[in-house]
């Protein structure tokens, strides 16, 4: 068991750190869930892409550096420690791209990946429907075969980034006789296509972070099917596994938040109020560190060829609850100013979504119980 840090990784860390130090905006960008903020975050992504730091794990041919998961963790630590902007392109680069690398044709990869990396095309997710949330396989939006492609009708909801995004990926029922996980197909479509209506939804924080998307005879050509027709569930699950597993929430984000929590604690003037939360502050810091070690362990195993499977549900449970605890502790330290507008309050509101999105924590517990522990299905 040797945890020594290799010199090449240290050199990578320093390269990333130096670039961020020189380029991260001094003032935080406006929320990416506003029109101005979205544009500003797009600009930021282009700067990252120009430095070939937008998609570091991708192959060099698509604008990446081809670094392994460990160097990706290093990048993320530096990124969040530097206070760099949230990633407006995250749906695409972290969720769609891994699926496209696995299932996409060469033409699809060449068409979609470079503009995704530069945020020239920002992607929204199309999973949930009004009648299909945790029970995603109950989805009913359909795509009927027509000459040269598919005619799409139906509705998606809670579609992250859709208010301002350019493209949408998601699952649609292509076999009208099918039910549940069968007969689904993974489609890609531009949000400005004829027949698409996007209705922004104000989130808990009041900003349009997600949207409803309506499809009324939308034409999607055959070349925008990702993976095989009728194999959408398998294709989509590869995305959700990587989503839960590693790439959605890197440890760097929580380590940075835990370190900021220590700063906040030091800034509280009243000694009684400051020390009242010492146990919670220490707990948050420990849990962020535990998350870092768990992910590092998982990444090291992945590099040795072990697939990231249902165990990744444990990962999602842990970080989402950790995030809430970090922010609850911060609000506690803020005392009567807890609900005054601040980065901590924004972070708290966002943290409350964590146990809901990407598969609710209740669903994750079922996954662990059934697929890891082998307990019987109800």
């Amino acid at each position: 068991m040797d945890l020594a840090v290799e010199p090449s990784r240290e050199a990578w860390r320093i390269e990333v750190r130096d670039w961020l130090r020189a380029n991260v905006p001094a003032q935080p960008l406006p929320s990416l869930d506003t029109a101005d903020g979205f544009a500003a975050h797009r600009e930021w992504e282009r700067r990252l892409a120009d430095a070939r730091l937008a998609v570091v794990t991708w192959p060099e041919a698509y604008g990446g550096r081809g670094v392994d998961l460990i160097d990706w963790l290093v990048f993320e630590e530096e990124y969040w420690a530097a206070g760099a902007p949230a990633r407006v392109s995250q749906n695409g680069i972290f969720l769609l791209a891994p699926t496209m690398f696995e299932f996409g044709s060469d033409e699809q990869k060449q068409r979609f990946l470079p503009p995704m990396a530069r945020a020239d095309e920002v992607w929204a997710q199309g999973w949930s429907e009004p009648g299909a949330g945790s029970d995603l396989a109950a989805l009913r939006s359909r795509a009927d075969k027509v000459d040269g492609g598919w005619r799409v009708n139906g509705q998606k909801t809670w579609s992250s980034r859709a208010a301002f995004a350019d493209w949408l990926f998601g699952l649609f029922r292509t076999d009208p006789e099918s039910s549940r996980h069968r007969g689904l197909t993974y489609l890609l479509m531009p949000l400005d296509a004829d027949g698409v209506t996007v209705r922004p939804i104000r989130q808990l924080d009041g900003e349009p972070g997600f949207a409803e998307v309506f499809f009324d005879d939308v034409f999607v050509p055959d070349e925008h099917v990702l993976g095989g027709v009728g194999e959408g569930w398998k294709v989509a699950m590869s995305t959700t596994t990587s989503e839960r597993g590693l790439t959605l929430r890197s440890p760097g984000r929580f380590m940075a938040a835990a370190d900021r929590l220590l700063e906040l604690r030091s800034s509280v003037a009243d000694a009684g109020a400051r020390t009242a939360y010492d146990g919670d502050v220490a707990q948050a810091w420990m849990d962020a560190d535990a998350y870092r070690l768990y992910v590092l362990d998982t990444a090291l195993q992945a590099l040795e060829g072990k697939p990231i499977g249902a165990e990744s549900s444990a990962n999602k449970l842990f970080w989402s609850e950790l995030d809430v605890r970090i922010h609850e502790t911060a609000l506690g330290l803020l005392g009567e100013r807890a609900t005054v507008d601040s980065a901590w309050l924004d972070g708290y509101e966002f943290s409350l979504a964590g146990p809901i999105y990407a598969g609710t924590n209740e669903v994750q517990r079922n996954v662990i119980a059934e697929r890891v522990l082998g307990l019987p299905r109800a």
Partner: protein
Amino acid sequence: MSSGMRLRPDDDAVEFAGSVRELFERACDVEALRAAWDSGDGRVPGLWKRLAEVGVTGLTVSEQLGGSGMDLTAALPVLVESGRAALPEPLVETLAGAQLLEQAGGELAARWLPRVADGSAALALGPGPTGVVSAAEHADLLLLADDNGSVFAVEPAAARLTTLPSVDTGVRLATVEWSADDALARLDGVDALAVFDWAVVAVAAQLVGLAEAMLDMAVAYAKTREQFGVAIGSFQAVKHQLADAYVATSFARPVVNRAAWSVARDVPSRSRDASHAKHAASVAASRVARTALQVHGGIGYTFEHDLHMWLKRTWTLSALWGNAQWHKQRLSRALLEDDARTRVP
């Protein structure tokens, strides 16, 4: 990746632990444990000698004195197995005490350490943060720190042991009255805090093993016990408790592994990492213990069922060598007062 950057024990250490696990399954099964709990001294007759034969008692004794001189990262899997087996032997105390003797060297080490390695002597050390010495009544030599942190070797006959009757008969607790005047020797040049941290992480590893064992028991029970015509493990209320127990154990494990590395390499954050490990493992094992008891229902709350031995060992080891709160405070001081935020690896 060619590098050795890992958070897991080496293959050799895992293989060795596998053979020790087989020994536990043969010689320390639940019948042997039950007999030990009913016996006078709480131990399994002959087991210590067998552990010595396969090299477990001499894990931390140097090779020239008859042991294998393993560091904590290599010893860790065996310690996890000893927890999983609810081993009622003075293992952590002896392995930790041997390091004090190794550090002191000289005639004392030359006389005692070969006996530790061959299983003819056990050690105890202390006192812990609240004045308790575990396994003192099994020890052939006591290694005791005075108020100034100086460590002395004291023969049991020269000390006054007061046994503290405990619900866990497999880990004997005592207070020890002694005087430096009656000591065999003072151990010079020892790093008592480093050895304390070693023991803290070793016990954390045992707690991980206990948590794994209790989770296995609870899952197995939930699969077979039927109510309302179905296995109780099909109910979400049961599933979610077991899933949370799994998560708690899974996230404690790498923290303990990292701490073993920090202790073995004596990195600056050693004590902080050790405290993190003991806190995480104590909290996780206590959580799993509650869940395992709840899932077992009435039968779990009996002396007849095996579970109680694992529950009580969890309570004991969670409390010893600084409990979760004690370690959280030690970590908190390092973090908030000493500004010791650097993380390893």
